[in-house]
């Protein structure tokens, strides 16, 4: 059978972009199939050069839109500029089990959510890869930090990560470009935290922004970060990492890449005789026309549940429950992060300090619970990821007062405020799962995904202690006006979803093996969050990228050796 391509990559987001780049650079002919529309880097959808007064409604989103179910719980992430990149619920619906909630945030467009992300990048550490084996929750990881380290390094070098070396074991250092640094208030918090709580650390936020572009980055047209924080409008400078600014152009430059957009991969074509995939079937997003594409290997990078959806839909006589799902493990062990409750306070003593520009990151207090300090009756833990700022003129809008004196008061920045909030790990549980809805279909004729996911007591206890910890940390820094903030979120709305096709050595429990190959079809690789048996509490994308780069290079080796 003649193949059209060496490898088909499903999805062009954070993971798919890396698969395309690595495979193309290894000399393979790659077809990327993206269900959403084409986006031109620096093209008309980018609005980062508009002045504040040139923006529609000065940046307010119509109130009625914010009541929309797609956005109601992720309002924190939405701006008028990026609204167009969030997929609307009614355009791609899903269902949830009665009595549960799940927020599935997607960006069906070239680049996926790499256009929307907040670019925070922390490696998972050795303890994270060992957690499942140690406490018995979820499927044990088949690989450890040492397997991932070279690929994290590889991603750092190409993507460009700003950060500072800190020597913290479970948030390992990387190859960093110059860090953005801390504000005066954060320096106070750091000093008091480290003095009062030995073992706890406060470090500069690490983020995928160029501060010292390399030759390779400059050659791709990427430039240094201008500290604008217009990231959610697209970055014409290509200073933050996205598929459209970095990996796809690098893949394109090899001459080995073909990208087709507006094309939904509906299933993987499986050959029961060879026990391999032959290619994929697709439906055009607009015309609904069907097509088939053939290749020697398939990379599923459609985002955690996008990939699970394709697997579950790939039903054949040999695999009636979906590809690789003979053991009913596809769709299980769904996790997101929980947002621990936090606290907010005013930092005193540095009112003579201020900042210039708009730093595109904040600071990070790595997890200490159940590492250097015990947790109060729960497993694993969370980290604080926060920011500080001096209140702006609008602080005066929320109180009585008017006139010249008030107007002139706003010329002085307001007090320093720190909001301590963070992400906590969700325990992997087999009954947190996603299945196909037996009756309802989408407009492409595919069954809807049905979510049955909830947070457990473990997460609630973790959240409570994060709140207490936040208050204690602020108190230690002498903060005033301390208020508790936050709530335990709906699963999914932290947009760090993982699981569904988790990797593991035991083919009766896991879906993929330690090389990211489907146990049931060795030329199918799943490298996005679906393959993660647990998710630590670190923002996951850098781990998806490293996992994808690793799998792509393994795949290239296997193809060269004729092993798949």
């Amino acid at each position, binding site marked *: 059978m003649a193949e059209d391509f060496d490898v088909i990559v499903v999805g062009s987001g954070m993971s798919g972009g890396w698969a395309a780049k690595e495979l193309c650079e290894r000399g393979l002919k790659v077809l990327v199939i993206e269900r959403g529309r084409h986006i031109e880097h620096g093209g008309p959808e980018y609005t980062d050069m508009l002045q504040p007064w040139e923006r529609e409604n000065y940046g307010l*989103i119509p109130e009625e839109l914010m009541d929309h179910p797609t956005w109601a719980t992720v309002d924190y992430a939405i701006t008028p500029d990026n609204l167009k990149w969030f997929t609307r619920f009614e355009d791609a619906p899903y269902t949830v089990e009665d009595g549960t909630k799940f927020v599935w945030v997607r960006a069906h467009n070239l680049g996926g959510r790499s256009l929307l992300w907040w670019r925070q990048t922390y490696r998972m550490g050795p303890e994270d890869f060992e957690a499942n084996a140690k406490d018995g929750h979820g499927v044990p990881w088949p690989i450890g930090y040492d397997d991932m380290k070279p690929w994290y390094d590889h991603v750092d070098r190409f993507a460009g990560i700003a950060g500072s070396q800190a020597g913290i074991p479970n948030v390992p250092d990387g190859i960093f470009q110059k860090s953005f640094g801390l504000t005066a208030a954060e320096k106070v918090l750091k000093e008091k935290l480290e003095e009062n709580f030995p073992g706890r650390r406060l470090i500069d936020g690490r983020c995928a922004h160029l501060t010292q572009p390399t030759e390779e980055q400059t050659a791709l047209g990427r430039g240094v970060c201008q500290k604008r924080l217009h990231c959610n409008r697209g970055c014409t400078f290509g200073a933050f990492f996205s598929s459209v600014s970095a990996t796809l152009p690098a893949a394109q430059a090899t001459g080995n890449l073909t990208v087709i957009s507006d094309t939904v991969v509906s299933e993987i074509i499986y050959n029961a005789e060879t026990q391999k995939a032959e290619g994929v079937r697709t439906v055009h997003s607009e015309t609904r026309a069907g097509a088939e594409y053939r290749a020697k290997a398939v990379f599923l990078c459609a985002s955690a549940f996008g990939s699970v959806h394709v697997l579950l839909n790939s039903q054949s006589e040999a695999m009636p429950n979906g590809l690789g799902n003979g053991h009913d493990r596809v769709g299980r062990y769904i996790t997101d992060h929980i947002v621990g409750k936090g606290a907010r306070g005013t930092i005193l003593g540095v009112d003579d300090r201020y900042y210039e520009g708009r730093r595109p990151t904040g600071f990070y207090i790595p997890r200490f619970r159940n590492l250097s300090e015990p947790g109060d009756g729960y497993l694993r833990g969370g980290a604080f990821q926060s920011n500080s700022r001096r209140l702006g003129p609008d602080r005066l809008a929320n109180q*009585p007062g008017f006139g010249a004196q008030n107007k002139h008061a706003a010329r002085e920045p307001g007090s320093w405020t720190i909001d301590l909030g963070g992400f906590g790990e969700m325990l992997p549980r087999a009954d947190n799962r996603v299945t196909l809805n037996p009756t309802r279909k989408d407009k492409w004729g595919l069954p809807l995904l049905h979510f049955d996911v909830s947070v457990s007591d473990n997460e609630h206890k973790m959240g409570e202690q994060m709140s207490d910890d936040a208050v204690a940390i602020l108190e230690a820094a002498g903060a005033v006006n301390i208020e508790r903030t936050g709530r335990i979120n709906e699963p999914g709305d932290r947009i760090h979803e993982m699981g569904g096709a988790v990797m593991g050595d035991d083919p009766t429990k896991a879906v993929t093996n330690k090389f990211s190959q489907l146990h049931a079809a060795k030329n199918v690789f799943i490298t996005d969050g679906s393959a993660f048996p647990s998710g630590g509490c670190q923002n996951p994308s850098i781990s998806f990228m490293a996992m994808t780069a690793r799998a792509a290079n393994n795949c290239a080796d296997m193809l060269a050796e004729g092993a798949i």
Partner: protein
Amino acid sequence: MTAPIKNRFASTRRSFLSRSSVAIVGVLALPGGLAGCSSKIPPMIVDATPVNLTAWRFQTLAQLSEMILPTTDTPGAITAGVPQYIDGLLASWAKPETRKSFEAALDMLDNVASKAHGAEFIELGDGAQVSTLEAYEAACFGKDAYDKTDADAAAKAGYRGLKRVIYRGYYHSEVGCTQELQYELNPGPNARIDAPLSEVGRSWAL
């Protein structure tokens, strides 16, 4: 989104005058009723035509905005285009409840003025306007302002929302960003994350 109720009557003072009899009929026919003063000719605070607010409310809003963020050594809310910004928001941003609450807030300001001084807010002299606005703000931000059973609860909440968009309109405007405070579109790689306030100077608008 529901179609905005366009004020067909007011554009400039002259066109308002020539059509004022139509205005009275039109206003009375609107559901929910509007402030009685809509049929009167408002003093011209800003020479602009509202698209969504009645002329009266628009001029009241202009006066209110300018009192909150007045012209000093830098231009005030009117020069910054705040009244037009908010008039536009009523159709392009506000939900019907928000729009109603903003209108109720402007009407309540007139009620407070009438009770104390026997005239609508924009008809008052400077001193009476200041004392009216003080009393009004005290009511809108006071302890009881959040009591939902209060007949004026929506109007008071409306004022709190209105004040926020007045600030937004001013500090996002070119005047607010470049004359009153400062804003850099592209601060650049050398912008300092920790710098002496004395060297940065004024607050950043955004």
